């Protein structure tokens, strides 16, 4: 089985994703977007970076590139898909997940470690954790503020599709612990099916034991915990 890590022009966490997945024994390869999705992929990762230089809006141009038609079809067929950071922006822009990620409340780029509270531990991406667990994962984004209509937000919560919320070290979801002004401190969500997930924090940066901790491993292992 192979995970396709889609490389758009301007992606810059594609190599990191492959390296982190390899560390977990998960076979992955970078796929140049113009080459199309290989047959027989067992998962798809949309990595972080600045696809198309974030021109227009973060993720907007990549979301409309031809490979995304194949990606959406595969995701609809149940192929697991994880969008991280710019990949999360692409996921939202392409309609795979609800809401948008837009300019941070600070209006600045922020690279720092944050705490996340696991909201739903019954999904492939969170099965390694317990509900209420607090994990430490880095963020690195200028456009990570999650915005969504009230109606859709209520639906997300009702359907238990919020994966993570920003919190403090003790797990309290507070304004102070919200790094970018995201609605409801939301850091990551599921799409219409539980096999599709997007999040702004970088699990691949919290996977290798020699840098940045290992709290993100459970998220990447989601690729292997789907039947």
């Amino acid at each position: 089985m192979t995970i396709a890590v889609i490389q758009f022009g301007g992606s810059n966490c594609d190599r990191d994703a492959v390296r982190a997945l390899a560390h977990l024994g998960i076979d992955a390869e970078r796929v140049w977007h113009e080459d199309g999705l290989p047959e027989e992929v067992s998962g798809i990762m949309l990595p972080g970076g600045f696809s198309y230089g974030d021109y227009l809006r973060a993720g907007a141009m990549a979301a409309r590139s031809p490979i995304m038609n194949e990606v959406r079809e595969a995701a609809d067929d149940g192929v697991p898909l994880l969008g991280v950071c710019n990949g999360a922006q692409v996921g939202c822009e392409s309609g795979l997940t609800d809401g948008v990620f837009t300019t941070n409340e600070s209006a600045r780029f922020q690279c720092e470690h944050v705490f996340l509270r696991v909201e739903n531990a019954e999904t492939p991406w969170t099965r390694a954790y317990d509900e209420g667990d607090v994990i430490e994962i880095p963020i690195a984004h200028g456009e990570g503020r999650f915005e969504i209509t009230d109606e859709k937000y209520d639906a997300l919560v009702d359907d238990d599709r919020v994966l993570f919320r920003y919190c403090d070290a003790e797990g309290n979801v507070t304004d102070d612990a919200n790094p970018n002004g995201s609605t409801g401190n939301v850091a990551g969500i599921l799409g219409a099916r539980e096999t599709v997930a997007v999040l702004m924090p970088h699990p691949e940066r919290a996977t290798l034991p020699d840098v940045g901790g290992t709290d993100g491993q459970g998220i990447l292992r989601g690729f292997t915990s789907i039947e």
Partner: protein
Amino acid sequence: MSLPDTDYDLIRDELGRDPTPAEGELFENLWSEHCAYRSSRPLLSAFDSESDDVVIGPGDDAAVVAVPLYEGDDETYITFGIESHNHPSYVDPFDGAATGVGGIVRDTLSMGAYPIALADSLYFGDFDREHSRYLFEGVVEGISHYGNCIGVPTVAGSVDFHEGYVGNPLVNVACVGLTTPDRLVTAEAQAAGNKLVLVGNATGRDGLGGASFASEDLAEDAETEDRPAVQVGDPYTEKLLIEANEDLVDEGLVLSARDLGAAGLGGASSELVAKGGFGAEIDLDRVHQREPNMSALEILLAESQERMCYEVAPEDVERVADIAEKYDLGCSVIGDVADGNYVCTFDGDVVVDVPPEFLADGAPMNDLDAVASEPQERDLPEADLTEAFEAVVGSPTTASKRWVYRQYDHEVGIRTSVGPGDDAAIIALREAGAGLALSSGANPNWTSANPYEGARAVALENATNLAAKGATPLAAVDCLNGGNPEKPAVYGGFKGIVDGLADMCRTLSTPVVGGNVSLYNDSVSGPIPPTPTLAMVGSKAGYDAPPAAFSGEGTLLLVGEAGGALGGSEYLAKTGGTDRFPTLPANPAGLVAALAAVADDESTLATHDVSHGGLAVSLAEMVTETAGADVELADEIALFDETPGRVVVETTNPEAVREAFDGVAPVTEIGAATTDGTLSLSVSDEELVYDAASIAELRDVIERELE
């Protein structure tokens, strides 16, 4: 600015005719101070640039150094370079700083390397001035925008505020790349008949005459008048260029390469062929252009960003074009490497026809007068200890730079095991099992007080930063910034920093493998302080390092010799008065070696070097919510002395530290760490007590003022 008459005569004698307008401009730019180092080259022989590890020293786009292998047997090379983008950053801070990053990254690409780390050393006028803040915010945002987008982590650096930079800030950017012996490429053309291929952005009328703009004082109206000389960068294209370069190098298609920087295509192509002992035949009409009706001169000299010049075998040209096409990059085959002259044609006419080595290396050197400054004498102020402590710890220069590095992606690449905010960053080179430590900075207070001793101190401080994290210095690159060298006092100061850096690096057996010189950092506000930014790399086994924060459990030792003086200190900058520059340790090499060993001992709980602001700042920085210290010092000189080569070590085994430093440097017990999160200082008969929150309040001045 135009070509000096003496240069013009020299060129006319060599060519046997008047130079064409295009030739005149080409010479003006390539023979400028910025490109030809006319005033500095006579001094630069002071540097030692060789060691067993150095593969390629100064003179190429970047230096190449072999990394000691701690694991495995695959030889690993790093590239290392540094560049200034000072004048552009004054005129247009965002674009000026951004394109500074772009330039040094392309210097990495042209060696066949992948960029893995950046360090920025920035210098601005007083933080209280609105204009300084405007420049500071713009420069940081420009670096953040460009560096983050291209996916190269900014892991280290420095920010200093000093009144000497009011009219002329400094932006010095260093880049480390990673390569292997079989991927290594140089900027030396290989054979006549090979094709010259230009890959990247289309050429427009931006950055015209940037090299000569960088080689004169900043005029009062520079912000409006010189804007056309500043390039505008596109990091998205740079990222595509990084990927294309990887593919080209992977497939072995690049015979030699040079990035297009100062003096544009004319600079890059002529230097590339001249270095190989060749000429070139270039058809300027074939350059892919962004604007209509460009003249030969504009095509030759525009400093449009994100462009590379490659030497490619004729049979590989098509494949290179395919790779450029994959990444939506422009590509034009502009001519051939040739025997004979460097020749450019345009619209059927020969517009340049000059001997390449004359163009590249023929600039006459300046013989300038140098006057050394008088050393300062002791005239210490009567200052209140509490006020002085708060002024020094709360000074923007010594304060927390979190506001800066939070805007830089410092973790992309998943190699950053120690990030910014510590003495040195550590990058995991898993290829060699090596932790690569990186430190960058200078101290304008030191080099203002005493250029020579101050520069020696800068070199020792960078080495101490590495050693405090357990690394042994491997190589350094320097960015030598000065004012108008035609002023004897400025040139004297500049000579002082060159000799000082060179001498200390030699003492430390650390080769200076490359660098950059930026003169004419002078404006109506006067010359900048002589500023010798040094970026140094070191290596160690593994990627771990002791933290800079107290654990709360150990004894506190100060290792290293205090110089017993306050000249060039932040304390005097805040309180007034003068003093001689502190005496530097007698055996810095032994000290650095002993320190690197002690840092990695399992009984070592924390290490932090003493520099800007002295022990006052070092100790304050080590305090956390849960760990503090009780420290006793003799007097305020001991508290604020900035002598480098000293480190606070928190250890459970003081005896082992004393043994390691036996015969090398003194070890003084200054107190003990505590678990109350409070710094309690007893200085002569006075007491200072600060908890973590009040220290944070002092240290967060930049964030508080700018948010």
